[in-house]
């Protein structure tokens, strides 16, 4: 029996999707239990499995015996606007989820890079936060709990559905940004916010130095933007660097911050975008990171943002960059080589700045790794955790690189 025959017998024909160009069978289990059944079998049979969502973020090119896609796990079992909580399966597209939440007056305050249909599971597994990280924190801060399936087919719950929870170890945070190395996320409990009644975006163009200063003035004025993002000319498709300021919240808060923005920055310098223009600006920014072959993020302290931007420019070229200087987070996308990435990671390590490779073709991921070499003592812990959650090594994830 071929793998395909066995999987068809196990999950039915409906779970088998069209095989991709690399001839790896693509399997779409229809429920978390089916994911557990598939991975349990893969573990027993010694199959190597790559994890996919909608296939719009990481290239579907990791060498494997089969591809497990979460795209049929697209239900939203619960939306509780009064409790600001929702439960969604990992394969739902963020665009669909956003719409369902908005219909109930609720908002998931994340704007990850990538195409609109990117799956929730992909965003959680890669912890790819966007500009809203400035006001609402990283992806992990939006998670109340997850259910995941280990590489040997065990279903594990972590966290819960309430706003605060310290019952048991926080395996949710291990899964957020684990790139699937510790299991396949199948269900996510989300912390929501009330859909902002006011949501405005202002843009300012200028040199990087000017805009950095303006950003510091805004922070110094005590304003609380939802996003404060510095965008390179190539990514913004403008002549110069752009500072995007998004104010979102209650009308009272946003009106007061709009007044404060004018006062802090000399008044009238920013251009206010219409709602559809603002949507297009932030969407273009997000989609820009899914177009070029390689995307990574680095995280330093706020005071080093300028130095880090200079370093990227020097070692890789300006390309497409977006930064939340106050959060110390920078994302770069472009075309570069394994050598350059490894050299950059070494330089950054010397500055105590981690670099996480978010997406790249398999040869690059395999060589560079999402995380690269660990610090002393961390490697055995991560290896132990990987063996815990994937004892047979079924899940193909390039964490460390070769």
């Amino acid at each position: 029996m071929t793998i395909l025959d066995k999987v068809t017998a196990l999950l039915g024909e409906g779970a088998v999707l069209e095989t991709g160009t690399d001839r790896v069978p693509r399997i779409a289990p229809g429920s978390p239990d089916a994911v557990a059944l598939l991975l349990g079998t893969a573990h027993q049979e010694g199959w190597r499995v790559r994890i996919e969502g909608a296939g719009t973020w990481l290239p579907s090119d990791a060498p494997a015996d089969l591809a497990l896609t979460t795209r049929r796990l697209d239900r939203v079992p619960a939306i509780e606007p009064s409790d600001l909580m929702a439960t969604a399966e990992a394969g739902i597209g963020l665009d669909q989820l956003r719409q369902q939440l908005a219909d109930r007056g609720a908002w998931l305050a994340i704007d990850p890079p990538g195409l609109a249909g990117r799956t929730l599971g992909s965003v959680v597994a890669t912890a790819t936060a966007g500009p809203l990280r400035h006001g609402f924190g990283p992806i992990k801060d939006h998670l109340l709990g997850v259910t995941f399936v280990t590489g040997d087919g065990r279903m594990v719950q972590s966290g819960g559905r309430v706003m605060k929870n310290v019952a048991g170890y926080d395996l949710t945070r291990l899964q957020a940004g684990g790139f699937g190395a510790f299991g396949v996320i199948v269900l996510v409990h989300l912390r929501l916010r009330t859909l902002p009644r006011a949501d405005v975006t202002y843009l300012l163009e200028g040199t990087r130095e000017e805009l950095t200063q303006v950003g510091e003035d805004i922070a110094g004025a005590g304003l609380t933007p939802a996003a404060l993002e510095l965008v390179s000319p190539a990514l913004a498709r403008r002549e110069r660097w752009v500072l995007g300021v998004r104010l979102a919240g209650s009308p009272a808060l946003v009106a007061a911050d709009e007044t404060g923005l004018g006062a802090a920055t000399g008044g009238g310098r920013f251009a206010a975008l219409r709602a559809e223009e603002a949507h297009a600006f932030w969407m273009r920014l997000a989609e820009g990171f899914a177009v070029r072959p390689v995307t990574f993020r680095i995280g330093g302290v706020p005071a080093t943002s300028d130095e880090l931007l200079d370093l990227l420019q020097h070692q890789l070229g300006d390309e497409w960059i977006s930064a939340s200087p106050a959060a110390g987070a920078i994302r770069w996308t472009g075309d570069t080589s394994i050598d350059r990435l490894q050299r950059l990671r070494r330089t950054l390590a010397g500055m105590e700045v981690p670099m996480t490779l978010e997406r790249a073709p398999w040869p690059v991921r395999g060589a560079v790794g999402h995380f690269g070499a660990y610090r002393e003592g961390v490697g055995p812990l991560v290896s132990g955790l990987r063996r815990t959650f994937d004892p047979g090594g079924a899940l193909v994830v390039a964490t460390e690189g070769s």
Partner: protein
Amino acid sequence: MSPHLARDLAAIVGARHVREARAERITYAMDGLPTHRRVPDLVVLPGTREELIAVVRLLAAHNVPFVPRGAGTGLSGGALADAGSVLVVLTRLNRIIEIDHANRRATVEPGVVNAKLSAAVKPHGLQYAPDPSSQSACTIGGNVAENAGGPHCLKYGVTVNHILALELLLADGSLVDIGSRGGEPWGPDLVGLFVGSEGNFGIATRITVRLTPLPRAVRTLLADFNSVRTAGEAVSAIIAAGIVPAALEMMDQSCVCAVEDSVYAAGYPRDAAAILLAEIDGGNADAVVAETEVVTELLRKSGARSVRSAASEAERERLWQGRKKAFGAMGRLSRDLVVQDAVVPRSALPHVLETIGGIAQRYGLVVSNVFHAGDGNLHPNISFDATDPGLKERVEAASAEIMSTCIAAGGTITGEHGVGIDKVRYMPLIFDAESLGAMQAVRRVFDPYERVNPGKVVPIHACREWSRVRRSAESAYATRHTPHVTVAAP
């Protein structure tokens, strides 16, 4: 336990920092929860990081279990040591190592008291936001172990949202740095995994925290209600309006009266069935004023009898002192107090509070509620006399029913106090055997022989065995560098 252990520990930390006499050890027999009592065999108080490392390596060499402890203000029996274990008290490791005000970071030792850190960074216009009610005594190390919360966590987040990097001392005495000052992890988020692990993964010897700007404007409102249900509905109305107050705290009449009878009297109306303390703060004074007006209006529309705004900083502090010292004030009601901790969906608050009232009545107990209403984080407090064995049994039974009620409402058994030993028995009510087994297996990655804080958090009997995992964890342990055991001079 080897009779030479105390002598060897004394060689590291000095004889006066090793407690052998029973009278001294009894001091450490309890934490803030009066229902559990364990007298440790030995207590050691290292005074420096180097001493602590030497102590843990010595304990590893002798294969002796140990329990890290901060100020002992915990409320789950998490820092109690069984016979056969050594209690490692970290309160002497109380240095603030660095304050980097430009980047809003501070690095501290685990024994630094929460409120002292905030006081130290205040001149820079900064604060350490998590503010448990015990903040004048509890330590940052303990906060990390428990993932402590506090009233202002509604807006600012709990401890895990403020921890950037840690230096860990594992059970085998090895040191590991996790996290980074920028907040982006080196690899998977081990900091997030460690915070809230209740000491089971090791000791955080250096803690780098995120600081936040002190708000430039603060408005504190006191609203009182004729019923707990109406107060709960007011909370929902504020959240539904898209406003996130810095704090949204509720107290019921029993609690209000206890406070008003105490030295912490804050001017709360005794005849109210419930009061709400709502605080709105921010960096933009105009925004704070505007949102305060909206919240005031929502409170009135939701049925508040009156809404009063603190007219001065002194009045604000008095209102908060009443709230933060409420647990102490309840000491007037009886000899002992069980401070419970559970979380329910916010919308379930009125129903759950009414059910808890019914449980108290059935068991003939006084239950006072003071809690973080904005998060749905309840603290039903049961006043009783622990010397009365019959009463203690009723308290235990009532506590179990309260937990079941919260779980049935879609909630969980602890929001900020931790599992410790007190709630181990409830863990199988919210996690299946597979999930508990996974937690146990993760613990063994950090501590293969389960020597740090044994018997806490995960009920071993309820776990599904991850035997393959155990073997691989032990193999990882065997390949890890075996620490060189050295005994530092005192």
